[in-house]
């Protein structure tokens, strides 16, 4: 049986009808370097067992953070996810339910969303949070567009400490709008001062805390500078566990908080699906994108949950909606909520402290290695180190020994002069033995 029931003649006829010579010509709008230039190198037809063997062999070539000492971070963090999380999210009531279109009939789903929003508002120090976005990067881009609507100003100022992938998503999502994005140069030392760059046309300033390079900032002076000029402060958080140890963005004066929630409940999974958090002040809620769940009482006075303020959304406002998002990261948001509920407030703070304590231990050990300079004066669970050799080569070398020593900055900022910089993240998953192997591996590689 042929999988594709078209004959070569069928294809030729169809191509002739629309006036092109080959199927490849249909893809000319895709940039050449993004196109596949030949067949994928896979075995031909085979039985199921043979296919399984072939793929298992291929998969075994991956070095997964779950089976190696891993210091990978840069926006995605390996944390311990309690087995309870997986057990609960796999209940069919949650697992197979889609974002509710007749929402009030799904009271259980709405209650979990309401609890998720409550948790997000609490840890970010804000007054209201939505039912989640796709990921931290899209939350950040939505925050920029929200600031534009609120201020009716045209420029957003982006910190050099913001993850370049986040900046790229902001640039993509604002590309066909009248918004301009001014990005500050990469801030490896954590010393940038954006306040003098804020002017009467600045809708918002976007900063990440801790930054891409791990630096932790007191954002209160920047918040004051923004508000002084009528601009909004957008704070992006890529490592949400840090909120258990730091003054919250809300307490520091943020107007919109956009965060990646993957660290709680969600596996790395090659980069997705993850879950975007988005929170703001109550006075800005009309411009908040995404679904919003509210608690109310029914005619008999019993507690119930509803989706509220839907007039912001696309199914009612069409092209004038706050966003074209009509959904949320339901299952990942649920995992986040279960994990954070299991931790509780005290447990969340302990987890954050544990991360920070272990990161201090690793930073101290790294600083003692010849050829390593720890750049950070402040950090949460991730530091930037300058190596005496190019970081990409050292990373490859250690990976061959089964050690994932971190993310070379050159991978994230290819054009920048940062060949020797390495981001090293340390979570509660890192054991003493892992640290020994990292230090031994780096010592040997930099000798």
């Amino acid at each position, binding site marked *: 049986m042929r999988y594709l029931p078209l004959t070569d003649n069928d294809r030729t006829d169809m191509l002739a009808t629309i006036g092109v010579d080959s199927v490849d010509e249909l893809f000319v709008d895709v940039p050449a370097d993004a196109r596949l230039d030949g067949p994928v190198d896979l075995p031909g037809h085979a039985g199921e067992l043979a296919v399984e063997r072939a793929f298992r062999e291929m998969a075994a070539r991956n070095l997964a953070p779950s089976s190696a000492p891993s210091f990978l971070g840069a926006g995605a963090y390996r944390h311990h996810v309690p087995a309870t999380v997986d057990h609960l999210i796999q209940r069919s009531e949650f697992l197979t339910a889609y974002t509710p279109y007749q929402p009030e009939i799904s009271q259980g789903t709405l209650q979990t969303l309401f609890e998720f929003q409550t948790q997000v508002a609490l840890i970010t120090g804000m007054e209201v949070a939505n039912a989640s976005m796709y990921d931290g990067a899209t939350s950040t881009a939505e925050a920029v567009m929200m600031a534009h609507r609120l201020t009716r100003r045209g420029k957003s100022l982006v910190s050099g400490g913001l993850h370049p992938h986040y900046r790229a998503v902001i640039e993509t999502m604002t590309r066909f709008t009248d918004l301009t994005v001014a990005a500050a140069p990469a801030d490896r030392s954590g010393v940038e001062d954006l306040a003098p760059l804020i002017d009467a046309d600045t809708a918002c300033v976007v900063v990440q805390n801790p930054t891409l390079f791990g630096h932790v900032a007191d954002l209160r002076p920047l918040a004051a500078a923004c508000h002084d000029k009528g601009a909004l402060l957008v704070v992006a958080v890529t490592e949400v566990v840090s909120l258990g140890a730091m003054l919250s963005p809300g307490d520091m004066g943020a107007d919109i908080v956009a965060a990646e929630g993957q660290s709680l409940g969600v596996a790395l999974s090659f980069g997705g699906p993850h879950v975007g958090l988005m929170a703001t002040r109550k006075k800005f809620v009309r411009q908040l994108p995404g679904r919003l769940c509210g608690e109310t009482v029914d005619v008999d006075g019993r507690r119930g949950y509803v989706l509220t303020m839907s*007039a912001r959304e696309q199914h009612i*406002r069409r092209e*004038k909606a706050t966003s074209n998002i009509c959904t949320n990261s339901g299952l990942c948001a649920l995992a986040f909520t279960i994990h954070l509920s299991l931790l509780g407030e005290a447990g969340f703070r302990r987890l954050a402290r544990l991360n920070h304590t272990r990161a201090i231990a690793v930073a101290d050990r790294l600083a003692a290695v010849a050829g390593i300079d720890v750049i950070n004066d402040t950090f949460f669970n991730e530091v930037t180190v300058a190596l005496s050799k190019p970081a990409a080569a050292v990373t490859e070398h250690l990976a061959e020994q089964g050690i994932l020593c971190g993310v070379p900055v050159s991978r994230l900022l290819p054009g920048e002069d940062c060949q020797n910089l390495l981001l090293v993240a340390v979570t509660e998953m890192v054991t003493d033995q892992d640290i020994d192997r990292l230090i031994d591996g780096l010592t040997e590689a930099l000798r």
Partner: protein
Amino acid sequence: MANVRYTEDHEWVLLDGDIATVGISDYAQEQLGDVVFVELPDPGRVLEQGGEAAVVESVKAASEIYSPLAGEVVEVNNDLADRPELVNESPLGGGWFLKIKVADAGQIDALMDEAAYQTFVEGLD
């Protein structure tokens, strides 16, 4: 309000000198149901005749409010921020939306008077 005029989009306008007060009609508030929010323009904004001036949200709908006359917004009804229900309770009184300094008072002549608007609304039902 003998001099009040209406648009086919159900806004009303009352001219006093060169200042026009704008709101939505009793028919409009009844069609919308409970109004929960009114988004008003900033004073100083210049509106074209028929241009979008405000947004009124009821429980499950949102509607644009268009300016019946061209002019500059000089005042908005800040009471609506805390009491949007005024639009339902008193659409032609305390539920007014905004005041504009009109550019051309003559534009009002083309709008419907009370009797013409009532006939227009009856034709819709």
